[in-house]
């Protein structure tokens, strides 16, 4: 077997990181529609909300499956510690995503039973978003491990801190959802989206702020990383605030595209801050990306196929968004 000539693990960190942020941004705005669903002004608005994501939501979720399988291949330790530790949460997330997906399809084909599918869509979106947020909180908290195995309890992932990160991501997805809706809707529905966006932005900033203050208190490593001296890292929260300000200004000026773009920026800068807070640990507090990595030849074997396929997936996704660009008209139903 040949010795590794370059560090595939680092490449895989990039691939998985890219997959995760793609998933969060893309599925975020369509989960957001579900979270905002119960608060929509009327049923026509709900139709528009659903129609605005209907052509793409399925493609958005492929990133989750790709991420799950990719983790097993490239960082098996992450896969075999996160999933047992988050056992109940993973189940809730999957059940929620399944209900939501089925609701999506059958709501458009249903009339009398439509309200049931509405609830499945809203409930599924909310639970899935919350569970994903709790995963982030658990990652910051760290995992109880021994000899490369999870040895903690079934509900270690459910603490006041992870509940807050769960709620935080629900608010974040709602913000992605409302700014997406500004982009895709018009008339009274767009007015409503303009109205709720600053409130959601405020909620996101408050919750992200509390998480930012709380994290160093529960994790010494993170405290050390951020407060052991002047750090380049300090730029990241400033960038996040800059994006938040941009969202606010764009909404006030009633610009249509920028609120969404700025929200994407807000999410990406938060994600980067999170990664650098814990770097190089992927199963904190004990294991780094390199401890968690699979064998060189396994990483290489999959990389070859991925390099071939990912460009196609990206091109195809871009094409879908292009085809379905423009406003979703109220009253232009599905069938």
């Amino acid at each position, binding site marked *: 077997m040949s010795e590794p000539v370059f560090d595939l693990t680092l490449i895989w960190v990039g691939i998985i990181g890219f997959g995760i942020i793609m998933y969060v941004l893309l599925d975020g705005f369509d989960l957001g529609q579900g979270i905002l669903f119960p608060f929509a002004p009327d049923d026509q608005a709900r139709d528009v909300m659903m129609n605005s994501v209907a052509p793409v939501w399925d493609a958005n979720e492929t990133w989750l499956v790709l991420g799950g399988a990719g983790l097993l291949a490239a960082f*098996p330790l992450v896969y075999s510690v996160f999933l047992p530790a988050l056992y109940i949460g993973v189940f809730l997330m999957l059940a929620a995503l399944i209900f939501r997906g089925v609701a999506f399809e059958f709501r458009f*084909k249903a009339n009398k039973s439509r309200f049931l599918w509405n609830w499945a869509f809203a409930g599924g979106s909310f639970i899935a978003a919350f569970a994903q947020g709790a995963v982030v909180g658990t990652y910051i908290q760290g995992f109880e491990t021994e000899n490369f195995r999870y040895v903690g309890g079934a509900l270690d992932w459910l603490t006041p801190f992870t509940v807050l990160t769960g709620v935080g991501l629900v608010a974040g997805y709602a913000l992605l959802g409302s700014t997406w809706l500004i982009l895709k809707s018009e008339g009274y529905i767009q007015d409503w989206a303009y109205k709720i966006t600053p409130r959601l932005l405020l909620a996101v900033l408050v919750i992200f702020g509390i998480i930012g203050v709380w994290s160093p208190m529960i994790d010494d490593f993170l405290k050390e990383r951020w407060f052991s001296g002047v750090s380049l890292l300090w730029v990241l929260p400033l960038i996040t605030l800059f994006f938040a300000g941009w969202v606010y200004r764009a909404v006030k000026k009633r610009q249509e595209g920028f609120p969404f773009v700025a929200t994407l920026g807000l999410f990406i800068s938060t994600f980067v801050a999170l990664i650098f807070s814990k770097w190089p640990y992927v199963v904190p507090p004990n294991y780094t990306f390199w401890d968690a990595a699979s064998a060189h030849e396994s990483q290489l074997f999959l990389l070859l196929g991925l390099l071939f396929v990912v460009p196609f997936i990206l091109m195809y996704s871009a094409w879908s968004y292009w085809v379905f660009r423009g406003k979703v008209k109220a009253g232009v139903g599905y069938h």
Partner: protein
Amino acid sequence: MELDPLLLSRIQFAFVVSFHAIFPVFTIGLASYIALLEGLFFKTKNPAWERLAKFWTQVFAVVFGMGVVSGIVMSFQFGTNWSNFSYATANFLGPVLSYEVITAFFLEAGFLGVMLFGRNKVPKGVHLFAACMVALGTFISAFWILSANSLMQTPAGLELRGEIYHVASWAEALFTASFFYRFWHMIVASFLTGGFVVAGVSAWFLLKGREVEANKKALSMTLWLLLIIAPAQLLIGDFHGLSTLEHQPTKVAAMEGNWERGTGVPLILFAIPDQENEKNHFEIKIPKLASLILTHDSEGELPGLLDVPAEERPPVFIVFWAFRIMVGLGVLMIGFAFAGLFLRAGGRFASSSWYLKGLVAMSLSPFIAVVAGWFVTEVGRAPWLVYGLMTHAEGLTPSLTGGMALFTLIGYILVYAVIFSAGVYYLMRVFQAGIEATDDDIEVESDHAKRPLSAAHVPFEQGDKA
């Protein structure tokens, strides 16, 4: 009673994988059938082929969608309940399962969209090509999954370093001793599934006197196909069994319900295996036949369950009966295929009421046979998760408690009950709407490749118009 996380995890895996398996096993066969219909239309320009293709493409879309949804759960099961197994085998299993995901996505991204929605938008040849590529893609998907499973049955090409298996040879690990038998057994099973469903649905339409010309064509060609592949499956199954005898003798002993190693072993038709007392009750058997079948010699020697210690024996009752259900249904399928041949004269295969009713009933048989077959091979491997290398107990997630496992088991049953009911109910609506419904070409802006279900335009409730 203490809840056993091991037993509950095994039940959970059996449940979710059985539930998932019935969708791909159908779509693999159906994809090839649709490609064939498209090919016939391309060549003969007979619109009957196109109408059939349109109808079955709708069915394909619904079933494919359900398969994707239930498949998401599968990709997390290995980590949640079998984390020690995942961790130890990830160097092989990770890339292989990822390749399956990649194949599926590639297929969806490129060709499924064209196949489902591009009929009037791309040249006919391109549409046919897309249908062929979708069919090819289902084979490639099956390749990866069955390769992963075969490694668990007849491991090879791996090297243990510490607690982790490393891949010493990709060729050996991907193509293990049982792979080719398993692959062809499964592909032909998929064709049988597609064949009997198409035959059953066509028969149902014929019984109702709907679209007689198209359905008669569909039934006729399907019966020719079944006439070849139903007996072929018996032959492949036989080879598969011989390979199992060589590599997993205890599994074969459980399939035959044979406790004592011996020569001139009888074939047991009926028995109630008794694991505890290591014998069978109420045996009905045919002398020397098992030896004859498995060694092609009536005095051939066959292994017995008592060859290995009690804790290395699989649950005999399940394996023994699952095997009989599978073979029994297979024989019934062959019977129906041959009956179709004898009813050719005067086209009675498409008019005989009892035969058509029988075919409608038989459309469920391949699903039961496939699940039973998987029970034979998976339960028959017990107590091994990776044969000879790792037991179920060793592969289990160490932090998993009985309560957690029970919670998710009940949860998955509830979730699947809801989506399965909705899916099957909707599929029935598509069948009721029938081939006639494909004539009004509905072009909807929302039609999109990534949402296969949107290719079906039948309303959810009865009496509604789309």
